[in-house]
C-alpha cells in the first residue's frame, strides 16, 4: 500500500470511491451521534446483540427472495430482513430479562449467540444452494464497502440524515433520560417510549452499518467514537460533535484503505482506524487523557511540595535554626524525613521559581516574593489547624495532617472568611499547636 495509490482515493478522484465514501461518512456521523446517547444510557452491548441477531434475517430474506425468484441481492430488502430479526432479538432480550431471573448480560449473550448460530445454519444452506450468488452474503458478515453502489449509498445517506435530525430534535428529551431517568419520569416525560425510540434508532444504525462494517463489528461504529469522545469533554453537545467527527474520520480513512487493499475485510479496517483514534484519545484527550492526568498530578505534587518546603523554611527561620547552611539542612531534612538529594532538587526548584536565594555555600534566604508566599502558606496552615482543633472536633495529634491536606485546596475567599470568623468565636490567631509562638501575617522580613 503506497502513498501514490492512497492519494487519489483520499482526494476523492474516483467516482466509485466518492459514492462509497459518502455512505460510510454519513454512517460514521450518525453512529457517532446515536452512540453517545447509547453509551451514556448504559446500553452499549445491546447494539452488539442486535447486530449479531441480524444474520438470520439477512440469510432468511436471501433464501425467501431466492425461492420467490426475485433479485436475491437487493440491498433494501435484505436490510428489511435484518431489521426484523434485529428487532426480534431485542424483544427476546427484553422478554428474558423481564420474565426470568437471568441477568441482562446473560440474556444478551444468549440472543447474540443463538441468533447468530441459526443464521450460520441458514447461511450454509445458502452456500449449498446451487446457482445462488452466495458471495454477496459474506459481505454482510465482514463488511465490504466496495460492494456499495450508488443507490445503497443514497439510502444510507438519507436514513442517516433522518436519524441525526430526529436525534437532534429530541436532544433535550434524550439528554434528560440519559442523565436522570427518574427525574424525567417524575416530570411526566414518557421515558419508556423515548427509550424505545432511542433503541429503534440504534437498530436502524446497526442495520445500515451491516454492509459497510459487517455484522460482527457493527457495534464498533456506535461505541468507539462515543467512548473516544468521552476523553475529550464532559459537555454533551461537545461530546456529540467529537463523536460524530471521529465516526466520520473512521469511515473516511477506513474506506480509503479498503479501496487500496480490497482483500482486507472493510469492517475490520474501519474498526482498526477507529481503534487508533480511540488509543490517541486515551493518551491525548484533553479531559480524561492519560497525559493530561499525569501532568496535572505532577503539577499538584510539585505545588504541594513547594508549599510544604516554604513553610518548613519559615518555621526553621522562626526557630532561629538557619544560621549556617549545615544547621538549616539538618532542620529541613529532619522536619519531613526528606532525603538530602530530594531536598536539594526541591530547593533548586524553589530557587528557579524566584522564592529563595543564597550566597554560595551559605544558608538559604527568602526573596521578597518567597517571604510573602511562605507567610501566606504558613498562615493558611495555622488557621486551618485552629479551625479543625476548635470547631471540627479533631484530635490535636491529627491536626497537622488534616491541615496539610486541606491548605493546598483552600481558596482565598475561604481563608479570608476563616480569618474573620475565628475572632468571633472568641479566638485570636494563635501560634501553631506545635509550640510555636510567632504569628505570621504582618511580620517584618527578618
Amino acid at each position: 500500500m503506497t502513498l501514490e495509490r492512497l492519494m487519489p482515493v483520499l482526494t476523492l478522484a474516483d467516482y466509485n470511491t466518492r459514492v462509497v465514501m459518502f455512505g460510510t461518512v454519513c454512517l460514521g456521523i450518525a453512529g457517532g451521534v446515536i452512540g453517545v446517547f447509547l453509551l451514556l444510557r448504559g446500553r452499549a452491548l445491546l447494539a452488539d446483540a442486535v447486530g449479531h441477531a441480524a444474520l438470520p434475517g439477512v440469510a432468511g430474506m436471501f433464501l425467501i427472495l431466492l425461492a420467490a425468484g426475485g433479485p436475491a441481492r437487493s440491498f433494501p430488502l435484505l436490510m428489511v430482513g435484518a431489521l426484523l430479526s434485529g428487532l426480534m432479538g431485542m424483544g427476546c432480550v427484553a422478554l428474558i430479562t423481564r420474565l426470568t431471573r437471568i441477568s441482562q448480560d446473560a440474556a444478551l449473550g444468549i440472543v447474540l449467540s443463538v441468533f447468530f448460530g441459526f443464521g450460520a445454519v441458514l447461511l450454509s444452506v445458502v452456500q449449498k444452494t446451487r446457482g445462488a450468488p452466495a458471495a454477496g452474503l459474506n459481505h454482510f458478515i465482514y463488511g465490504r464497502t466496495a460492494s456499495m453502489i450508488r443507490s445503497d449509498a443514497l439510502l444510507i445517506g438519507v436514513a442517516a440524515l433522518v436519524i441525526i435530525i430526529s436525534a437532534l430534535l429530541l436532544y433535550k428529551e434524550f439528554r434528560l433520560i440519559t442523565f436522570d431517568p427518574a427525574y424525567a419520569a417524575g416530570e411526566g416525560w414518557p421515558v419508556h417510549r423515548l427509550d424505545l425510540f432511542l433503541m429503534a434508532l440504534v437498530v436502524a444504525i446497526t442495520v445500515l452499518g451491516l454492509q459497510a462494517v459487517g455484522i460482527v463489528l457493527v457495534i464498533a461504529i456506535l461505541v468507539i467514537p462515543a467512548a473516544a469522545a468521552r476523553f475529550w469533554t464532559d459537555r454533551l453537545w461537545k461530546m456529540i460533535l467529537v463523536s460524530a467527527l471521529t465516526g466520520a474520520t473512521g469511515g473516511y480513512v477506513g474506506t480509503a484503505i479498503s479501496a487500496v487493499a480490497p482483500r482486507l475485510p472493510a469492517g475490520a479496517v474501519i474498526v482498526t482506524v477507529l481503534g487508533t483514534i480511540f488509543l490517541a484519545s486515551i493518551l491525548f484527550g484533553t479531559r480524561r487523557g492519560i497525559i493530561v492526568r499525569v501532568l496535572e498530578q505532577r503539577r499538584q505534587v510539585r505545588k504541594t511540595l513547594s508549599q510544604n518546603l516554604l513553610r518548613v523554611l519559615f518555621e526553621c527561620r522562626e526557630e532561629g535554626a538557619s544560621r549556617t547552611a549545615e544547621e538549616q539542612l539538618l532542620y529541613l531534612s529532619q522536619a519531613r524525613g526528606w532525603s538530602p538529594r530530594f531536598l536539594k532538587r526541591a530547593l533548586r526548584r524553589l530557587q528557579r521559581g524566584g522564592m529563595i536565594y543564597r550566597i554560595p555555600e551559605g544558608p538559604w534566604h527568602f526573596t521578597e516574593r518567597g517571604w510573602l508566599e511562605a507567610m501566606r502558606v504558613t498562615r493558611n496552615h495555622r488557621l486551618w489547624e485552629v479551625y479543625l482543633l476548635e470547631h471540627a472536633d479533631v484530635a490535636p495529634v491529627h491536626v497537622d495532617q488534616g491541615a496539610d491536606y486541606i491548605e493546598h485546596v483552600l481558596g482565598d475567599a475561604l481563608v479570608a472568611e476563616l480569618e474573620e470568623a475565628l475572632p468571633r468565636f472568641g479566638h485570636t490567631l494563635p501560634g501553631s499547636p506545635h509550640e510555636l509562638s510567632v504569628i505570621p501575617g504582618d511580620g517584618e522580613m527578618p
Partner: protein
Amino acid sequence: MIFWTTLDSWIVLAAALAGASCALTGSFLVLRKMSMMGDAISHAVLPGIAIAFILTASRGSGVMFVGAALVGVLTAVLVEVIRKYGNLEQGASMGVVFTVLFAIGLILIEQAARHVDIHPDHVLFGAVEMVPLYTVSVAGLAIPRGVLVLAVVFLINLTVVTVLFKELRLATFDPALATTLGINARAIHYLLMTLVAVTTVAAFEVVGSILVIAMLIVPGATAHLLTRRLLPFLVVSVLTAVLAAGVGHLAAIGIPPHFGYEDVVSAGSIATVLGLCFFTAFILAPEQGILARAWNRVRLQLAIAMQDVLGLLARSEERSRPAAGNLSRSDLRGLDRSPFALRGRTLHLALLLLAARGMVLRENGRYRLTERGNEAAQGLLRTHRLWERFFFDDGQVELGDLHPAADYLEHYTDDRLQADLAGRFAREKTDPRGNRIPGL
C-alpha cells in the same frame, strides 16, 4: 437418511468436550453476571490465534494456549483500565476492547491465510468437520488432535472447579465474605478469566469464536432456570452442553437431506439446539418457567374467587336475601365488592369447582351452600370480621374502609393467625357493624 460414520463420532465427541469445558467455566460467568466478559474474551483471543498461526505456520500449538491465557487476562485488565479512566460503564469499555482486538485479528487472519490453510469463515463458525482430519497417535490409536486437546482442557477445568469448588462458590455468591475469610477474590477472578480464554481457544477450532459464546453462556443460563443449588447447576449445565452437541450435529446431517441439501454447518446447528434447550426451560421449568408461573397465578386467582363466592353466599343467607341464600350468577356478580372482581370465566370455573367439591348446590340456575360449604364459609366470615374488628379497634380505620382491607387479608390468613385474632377479640363477639363473628 443419516450416514453416521466414525468421523461423525469424533465430531460429536469433540463438540461434547468443547461444550462441557465451556459450560463448566461459563456457568460461573453467568452466576457472576459477567457473561459478556466471555463474549469479550472469546473475540479478543483472535489476534493471539492469528499470530500463532503466522509464527508456527500450523493450526494449534502450545504457544497458542500460553498466548490465549495472556490475552484473556490482558482483556480483563484493559476493560477495567478503560472503564476506570474513561468513567465508562463496563459494557462500553468491553465493546471498545473486543471490537478493536477482533478487527486486528481478522486482518491478521487474512494475512495468515497465505501461509496456513484457514478461511475467515472458520473463525466465525468453526470447522468441526475438519477435526477428524488431523490425527496424532496415542498408544497406537489414531486420535484427532482437536479431541485430545479438548479432553486435556476439560480435565484441567474439571480439576480446577473440583479443587477450588468452595472458593469459587464463595467468591461467586459473596465476594465480601470470601475476602474476609482470606480468599483472594481478585485472584479467583483472573483465574476464571484465564480458564475462559484457554477454553475458548481450545473450542475455537470446533465452534468458532462467536458460537463459543453460545456454549459458554446458554448452558449456564438454562441451568439457572432449573435449579438453585450450585452442584446440580453445574451438572445440568454440562449435560445440556453435551446433549446439544450430540443433537446439534445429528440435526445438521440428518435434517437437511429432507429438503434436498447435503448438510449444514454443525456449529450453527449446535448453537440453535442450545437455544431450543434454553427456550424449553424458559417455558417448562418447574419453578421459573412461564407455564409454571402462569399456572400458579391461575390457581391463586381461582382459590380467591372460590372463597369470594362462599363468602357472598354465606352473607346473603345470613341476611336472607334475595331468597334465603339462593343466588343466581348475575346476583353474585352484582353483590361482589371484592378487590379481585368476580368475572366471566373465573366465576364460572370457581362455581364448577365448588360444585365438584360438594360445597355448593346448583338448582335451576341458582346456587346455595351445602353443609360442607357452609362450614368453610363460616370460617371465612370469621376471619373477615376478626380483621374488621382488628382494624377498627387497633388500627383506627374508618368504618367505611374496613371491608376492602379485610377482603384482601381474609384470603391470606392461616389457622394460627385466625386463632390469635380470635383470642384477642373473644369478648367482642361481633364485628364493628354489629354482625355476629361466627364461632365466638
